[in-house]
């Protein structure tokens, strides 16, 4: 029976009639193009990176947060360019003016010494943001390296890491940090003496000290997370395969393990920025953090706490900025988390 016998079908010259031949053709096609018949359109292949980008940019909150964050960072770090008032200048005029609520001239009002509060908030932001970013970066770096090594090499390195982190988790983190800050700024010990320098000029500003102490005590959290990730990835078969092919430890870590852990690491690093900002502001509020003459948002709130019921603007604005920054960072962090692993729900 040939195709031409069937009244419903029209055969054209040159078409194969034999099913076996057609089958063979199909096989050839498949081998040649690695796709079944060009008539079947399949969804275009996407690389990991493209998928990630698509998911991230799709996340409306994350986008909003990112944009706002970038805008704030630019505005704050380039304050010299556009903020007319001096946040620190004390003149007899300002001292006479004293505290004032927001007005057209002073958008955020003035502080106790008559200084423009808006300018102060913006410039204080430089310190707060710097600390947030610095702590996140350094603690992530140290934590990733140690956590990866502990997870990968195991045994005593791992045990050591776990014992150290246990030690510092036995009391609430804020307490540990407060002690650390006090220690690092005290002239009674060599570390503090080094930090404070000799003479009048301190060798390091309080912001650098804070970054250092927070990072030194904060990397442990990161290390724990990274260690956990490495442990779970280590068990996967492709690692075994790489080892069987003779890959060196270094290569396995850098080419196989870390790229697979990168998701949680990045997400945690982002969220660490927010945590660092809040932690610094809390410590400054309690008196352990940023010291005058420098100021941060938390420090400004410390100053505000005594007389806020008549001068709420002193209270609202620094806190609002902290809130906004942390919110945006959290949005971005969540967006990253969704983009890396769509299975984890909001």
């Amino acid at each position: 029976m040939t195709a031409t016998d069937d009244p419903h079908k029209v055969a054209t010259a040159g078409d194969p009639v034999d099913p076996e031949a057609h089958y063979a053709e199909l096989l050839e096609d498949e081998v040649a193009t690695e796709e079944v018949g060009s008539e079947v359109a399949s969804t275009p292949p996407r690389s990991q990176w493209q998928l990630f980008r698509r998911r991230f940019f799709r996340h409306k909150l994350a986008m909003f947060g990112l944009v706002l964050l970038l805008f704030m960072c630019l505005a704050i770090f380039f304050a010299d360019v556009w903020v007319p008032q001096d946040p620190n200048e004390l003149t007899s005029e300002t001292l006479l003016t004293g505290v004032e609520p927001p007005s057209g001239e002073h958008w955020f009002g003035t502080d106790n010494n008559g200084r423009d509060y808006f300018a102060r908030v913006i410039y204080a932001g430089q310190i707060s943001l710097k600390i947030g970013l610095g702590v996140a970066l350094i603690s992530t770096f140290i934590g990733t390296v140690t956590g990866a090594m502990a997870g990968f090499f195991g045994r005593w390195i791992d045990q050591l890491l776990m014992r150290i982190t246990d030690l510092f988790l036995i009391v609430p983190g804020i307490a540990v940090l407060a002690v650390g800050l006090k220690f690092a700024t005290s002239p009674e010990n060599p570390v503090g003496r080094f930090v404070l320098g000799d003479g009048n000029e301190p060798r390091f500003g309080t912001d650098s000290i804070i970054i250092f102490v927070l990072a030194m005590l904060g990397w442990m959290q990161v290390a724990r997370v990274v260690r956990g990730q490495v442990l779970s990835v280590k068990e996967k078969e492709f690692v075994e395969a790489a080892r069987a092919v003779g890959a060196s430890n270094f290569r396995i870590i850098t080419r196989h393990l870390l790229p697979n852990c990168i998701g949680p690491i990045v997400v945690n690093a982002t969220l660490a920025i927010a945590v660092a900002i809040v932690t610094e502001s809390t410590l400054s509020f309690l008196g352990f953090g940023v010291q005058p003459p420098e100021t941060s948002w938390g420090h400004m709130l410390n100053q505000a706490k005594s007389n806020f019921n008549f001068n709420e603007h002193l209270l609202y604005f620094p806190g609002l900025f902290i809130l906004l920054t942390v919110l945006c960072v959290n949005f971005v962090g969540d967006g990253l988390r969704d983009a890396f692993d769509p299975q984890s729900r909001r």
Partner: protein
Amino acid sequence: MIVYVLRRILISIPVVLIASFLLFWFVRETFDPTARLRNVRDPEVVARETERLGLNDPVPVQYGNWLKEFVQGDWGESARTREPVADMTKRAFWNTVQLIFFGIFISAIAAVAIGVFGAIKQYSIPDYLLTGVSYLAIAMPPFWFGLLAINVLAFKVPEWAQRNDISFLGVDKRQVDFVGLHKARGSGVNEDYFRHLVLPVLTLSVQIIGSWSRFQRSAMLDVMSADYIRTARAKGVPRRKVIFKHGVRNALIPLVTVMAIDIGLLFGGLLVTETIFSIAGMGRMFVQALLQGDVAVLEAWMIVVAVFVIAFNLLADILYSVLDPRIRLS
């Protein structure tokens, strides 16, 4: 199980000892108790005081001396107030416990309710609202919220009510207090007590609820997409029962452990809340002691806090094994 508990306790002891030693050392290296004297008194007095405080001995020896006394019940005196540390600590602890008790009670109920609701009615308007609020709750620095709460509830609201002549439900008077747990010379559990509790408990709850409810919601979502939920539905189990008997029961497992650990940390962690509301609890005790280098107080604080952190971590593990029959403590 007893063996497991004992073993955990045994392992923790060295950790606590090492940590307390480190703390001792750091504090000694940070503060000089005779500093105030140096300017005022002549060197002989200073030398005598130094000797009296044992400051000439090497730090490990000083630590050993302190430890010896401590385990025998002599917790020393506060360098700041000369008050026996044991009494101070007991009082402070009791105050903190009250805050924790009420805070956790409210937070746990609210967080579970919000989390379950959000998971069931996912993507509904209330869910978006609640999610948004929890984002805010987590992002807000707790001390700022506390100050705002005082500002608004204790001042602004009565002012606004007075200005507009509204006295409905006593809105024109200040209904909440924000200094300590009782009015001066007040005591006991009474209306005044609760008026003082409202703001601090609210402040400490906000962050906790924000974090726990998000956790609960995500745990619920994970659980509700599990196969055994599908089986329960396929058996004809009514929806409410599926959610609670099958869903929540499983979602609570990870949440309960997180809760236990968080509560453990609260015993020493309410630094901010107690400072803002002038509540003489463990947190405030720590802050004041650290500002002065009051080593005896700091050490006592650390030991007590560490004990509770360890205890609650242990509780978390025990609860986990109780709730999840797949896990048995070895």
